[in-house]
C-alpha cells in the first residue's frame, strides 16, 4: 500500500475523524498494513506486544482464559481499534486477541507512536484525545456489561 492509499485508509477510519492532513501523513508514515488469518491469535494474555491496530475489515475477539475455559468478552470489527494500551509505557497484554474472520489492519508500533507524541505535542494531543475516546467508550460498555442487567431478578419475567 503506497503512502497515498495509506492516508486514504487512515482518514476513512473513524478513529481519525477530523484529524488534520499533516498529522494524518505523519501517522501514515508509521503505518504498516498487516493481515491475519481466521483463528489466528494476534497476542496472548501476558505477552509483551507493542502494536496498535486500526481494524479495516474482519472481526477480532478479546478473550480471557481460566482453568482451560475461554471466555469471550468483546468483539471488535472494522472501524474499531485494537491494542490501545500499546500507547502506554507497559505493553503487557491483559487479554487474548483472536481473529474470528480474516482481518485487515493498519498496524503501528506503540513505541514509535509514543515517541512521536513526545516530539510533537500537537500531534500527541490529537492522537491521545482519540485514544481517550476509545478508552471512555470501552469503559462505558464494560460498566453496562457489569450490570449484568439481563440476569437481574427484576428484569422482565415475560
Amino acid at each position, binding site marked *: 500500500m503506497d503512502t497515498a492509499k495509506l492516508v486514504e485508509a487512515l482518514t476513512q477510519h473513524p478513529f481519525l475523524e477530523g484529524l488534520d492532513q499533516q498529522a494524518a501523513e505523519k501517522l501514515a508514515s508509521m503505518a504498516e498494513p498487516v493481515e491475519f488469518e481466521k483463528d489466528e491469535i494476534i497476542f496472548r494474555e501476558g505477552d509483551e506486544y507493542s502494536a496498535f491496530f486500526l481494524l479495516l475489515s474482519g472481526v477480532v*475477539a*478479546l*478473550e480471557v482464559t481460566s482453568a482451560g*475455559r*475461554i*471466555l*469471550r*468478552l*468483546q*468483539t471488535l470489527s472494522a*472501524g474499531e481499534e485494537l491494542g490501545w494500551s500499546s500507547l502506554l509505557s507497559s505493553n503487557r497484554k491483559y487479554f487474548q486477541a483472536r481473529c*474470528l474472520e480474516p482481518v485487515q489492519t493498519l498496524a503501528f508500533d506503540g513505541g514509535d507512536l509514543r515517541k512521536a507524541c513526545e516530539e510533537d505535542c500537537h500531534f500527541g494531543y490529537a492522537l491521545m484525545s482519540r485514544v481517550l475516546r476509545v478508552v471512555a467508550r470501552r469503559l462505558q*460498555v464494560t460498566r*453496562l*456489561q457489569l*450490570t*449484568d*442487567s*439481563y*440476569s*437481574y*431478578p*427484576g*428484569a*422482565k*419475567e*415475560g
Partner: protein
Amino acid sequence: MIAESPSLARGPWPLAPVENSMATLPAMVTRVAKETADTFTLTLEAGSGRRLPPFSPGQFSMLYVFGIGELPISISGDPHDAEHLVYTVRSVGLATNALVTRQCGDAVGVRGPFGTSWPLAEIRGKDILIVAGGIGLAPLRPAIYHLARHRADYGRIVILYGARSPQDLLYRKALAEWGRLSDAQVLSTVDYGGTSWRGHVGVVTTLFRFVRLWPSNAAALICGPEIMMRYVVRELEHRGLDGADIYLSMERNMKCAVGFCGHCQCGPYFVCKDGPVFSYAQVKGLLDKYEL
C-alpha cells in the same frame, strides 16, 4: 394497505377497556416449549369451541396459576392467530416456576389483554428499529410478526437483540427467519460468549455502529431491562431520533391490571393501564429515578 384487524387499527393508546376485566377465563395449556434453561413458551387455547380475546402487540395478560398466584405476562405470539395466546415466561420465583411447569392439558386462568400496544398503525411507512434485551424480545415478537406479515407497509426493519450469553438467546430460529425478510437486518450480541459463539460480544448498544438510520423517518421499539433501555435511548438521541418516535415497554409490579391498586405507579402513570408501551416523550425523566 394493512388488512387491519380491529385491535390493530386502534393505535397505541388508549385501547378500549377489556370487557369483564376482573373475570378470569379458564384456558388450557396446549404446548410448552423450552427456550432456554429457565425460559419457556406456553401456548394456551380456550377449548370447548370458545375463543380467547384478541390482543394487540405489546399488551399483556394476567395469568393465574390456580392456588399459587396471578402474574402479569406479555403476550408473545402472533396477533393474527385467533385460536391461541402465547406467552414466554422466565422462571424467577414461585409463581413463574409454577407457570412454566404446567403440562399440556393443565388449566391456567387468563384475564385481559391489558395495556397499551406498540403503535404499528402510526409508524407505517417508517424504518423500524427494534431493540430487545433478554426476555424483552417476547413482548416485541408480536410486533415483528405483524411487520413481517405487512412487510410492504414499512421501510427497512432492523432488529438488534442482546442477551447474557449464547445459551440465553430466545427464538433463534425466528431470528434467522426474520433476517431473511426483504430489507431486514437482524443482529444479535451477547455479554459473554464461549469459543463456539462466532457472533458479536458486547452490550446491545455496540451494535448501533452497524446500523444506518434515517432519523427523520424512523421509529424505534425497545424492550428490555430499564438500564439497557436508558442507554439505547441515549444512542438513539445521539443519532437524531426524536423522543416521540421512540417507544418503550416498561415493567412495574402490576397486580390488578386496571389501574385501581396503584402497585405499578410510575410518576403520573399506572403502567398497567397507561402502559406498558409508552413513547419516550411520555416517560423521559422517569426512567432514571431511584424512587417515584
